[in-house]
């Protein structure tokens, strides 16, 4: 699929917009290694794309992926009820809720804590791979996927909020108490990292693939 006729990116025509004062400026003809562009108006740094977006996203995504392992293996919280209780992992909690007949709640926890982070990591990874392999396929759908992912991504934090509130509220000593586990910390890190990864991902990279490299005036990463 090609970009619609008559539409060109700022980069294509050799222009760059300032993120702060939104003034347009031209790319210089020559540029030394390890140098930055600055806005002639407000002197802030200029990027036509989020700098190092691919690498940053990939790094954060990988970090999130690794932390997702302990987040699922380790207990996220310990519910002590009448003197006895045991640590529960995320999946364990979902199963408990299901066994307790609270399947709507189980569904919410399952979606927010398992489905969403997994989808988020998978989608972002897919997008990064598509960029890496210069995929031409459906840039519009991919962008839409990115938007949807960015939207739902924040909801995985629900679990962390629930744990935070419960731990704070349910402190009745031996009768009923809830303690956070190390898994919750990992999971929070996963959510935050994926949010950052989504944030540093530049969806324009998807579209840049459609433009021939020769057409670009500047390096893809700049």
């Amino acid at each position: 699929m090609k970009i619609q006729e008559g539409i060109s990116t700022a980069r294509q025509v050799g222009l760059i917009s300032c993120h702060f004062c939104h003034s347009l400026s031209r790319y210089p003809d020559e540029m030394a290694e390890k140098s930055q562009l600055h806005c002639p108006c407000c002197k802030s740094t200029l990027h036509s794309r989020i700098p190092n977006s691919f690498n940053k996203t990939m790094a954060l995504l990988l970090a999130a992926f690794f932390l997702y392992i302990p987040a699922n293996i380790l207990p996220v919280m310990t519910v002590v009820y009448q003197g006895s209780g045991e640590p529960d992992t995320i999946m364990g909690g979902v199963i408990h809720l299901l066994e307790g007949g609270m399947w709507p709640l189980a569904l919410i926890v399952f979606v927010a804590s398992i489905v969403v982070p997994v989808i988020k990591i998978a989608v972002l990874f897919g997008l990064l791979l598509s960029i890496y392999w210069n995929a031409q396929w459906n840039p519009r759908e991919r962008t839409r996927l990115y938007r949807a992912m960015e939207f739902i991504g924040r909801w995985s934090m629900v679990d962390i909020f629930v744990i935070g509130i419960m731990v704070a509220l349910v402190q009745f000593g031996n009768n009923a108490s809830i303690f956070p586990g190390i898994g919750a910390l990992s999971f929070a890190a996963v959510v935050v990292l994926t949010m950052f990864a989504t944030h540093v991902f530049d969806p324009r990279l998807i579209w840049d693939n459609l433009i021939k490299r020769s057409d670009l005036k500047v390096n893809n990463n700049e």
Partner: protein
Amino acid sequence: MSEKIIKNYPVAEIKKQPFVPLVWLIPLVAVIVTGWLVYKHYQDKGPTVIIDFENARGIEVKRTHIRYKDVDVGKVTDIKLVRRAGATDTGENLVQDRALVTAELKSFMYDYLGEETVFWVVRPRVSMGEISGLSTLFSGFYIEMDPGTKKNGKKEIYQGLDKPPKVTSRDRGTVITLNSEKLGSLIEGSPVYYHQLKVGEVLDSQLNIDTDSVDISIYIQDKYKHKVRSNTRFWNVSGVDVEVTPSGGVVAKMESVAALVLGGIAFETPKEANKSKELSGDTAFHLYESYKAAKEDSSGDNKLYYVMHFDDTLFGLVKGSTVEYQGVQIGKVEDIVLHVDNDKSDVHTVVKVSIFVDKLSNLGDKIEVEEMLGKLVAKGLHGQLQTSSLLTGSQYIALIYPDKKTSGMKLNKTQDSNMALFPTTAAASSILNFDASELTGELTKTVQEVRKVVKSKDVKQIIAETGKLAKNIRAITQGLNEKGVSGELVNLLSESRLAIVEIQKVAKTTQSTINKSLGNDSALQYKLEIMLDDLSETANSFSVLADTLQRKPNSVLFGK
């Protein structure tokens, strides 16, 4: 958008890039953190144990925890049912279904597993002696473990007990096996007393097929275990011990109310510590039926056996009757049998007695005691049946020196047994088979004395003088009759004065005679008095007893 417009835009300024982006440090840190967390998680896992339980009652996967000293040390991860083919002692095929419980312990538990490690389920338990595990009513059952003392080696499958072991490795007490003919009313948990203080309890009891007796294992607390020595005697104190003693009277003994309900065992160690050794290893003791049995019995090593022949009736003499020397028990009757002579012409009784060596020798030296008894017998020591209780008619054997000196006897081995024959003498008087020889002898003596007195000249003289006095009195009376009272009153008075003097003389003579023959403090007089007193008292007692019996015959059994 034309090229021209674009050219109007100012050119962006170029500056040096300030730093190398460190973004790849983030996944690096993430990997390190993840690696550490996962490593720690698996390190925390600890050993996995499989416990073999009879049944999995109360055990739930993931819910049931393993505890040691009330510290949560793991939890059950799996329960499986296995069918195991085994063989019984008699060789029959036996299929056993067992519940195999898999549990994951914490990492620090590696050091707590050994060959002796056992597990058991803690449930609410109510027994006669105690109530335990009540807390599990709320918290749910849990599995308790005892690591055991041996630290070596991990086992594949650990033993799961049905009930908590009475002795755990941390109790560090001593387990002693007692051997008894009957279990009595002992149950698991029955207390063991030392000086009526609870120092342990009964752990287990089982039938010993080989000896056809009951093996009872008891546990003695660590701090009291030195009280059990090689010569310690254990006896059963279950319930109330009512006993009619040979020395008369009824003795009822009860150790404690707990022992009444639970049964119990008491033990005592004779004071002579030099004769006993410290306990070493597995020692088996005999459990006596009663305190009396324990007290009387010496182990076979410390007894000397003798045979006695009695011509008297053995009614009232039983196995266990005492052998006494001057009222102190030094032995007991082991057996009473009838012996038929070789030519079948005579049947006589044979009483086997044992003499407690410990009583006669501080060192428990058998040979020393044997020699000593030999000397005593040579001096004339005899066995004699004596009655110990009028009511029960029970008898005992007393070792006495009879009056007629029969010294020079020897303890000879009898022909048909290797036991020496102990000389005996006929039973002395007892009130039941009233042999009044002694009393008759005394009476005869008295009668002879009296006859002597009567036959003596003094007595004849007294009688003669009394006759003279009578004549005089008669003469006075005649004179009075003839002369009349008024005329001869003075004469009469003087004559009667003479008569009184005469009477006084007679009385004096009589007194001196009696004193001469009997003596004021003569033994005969004293004995006679005592004897008469005794006899009258005895008669009184018997009449009272007879009255009582007539009125209430059952008073013998139930008292007045």
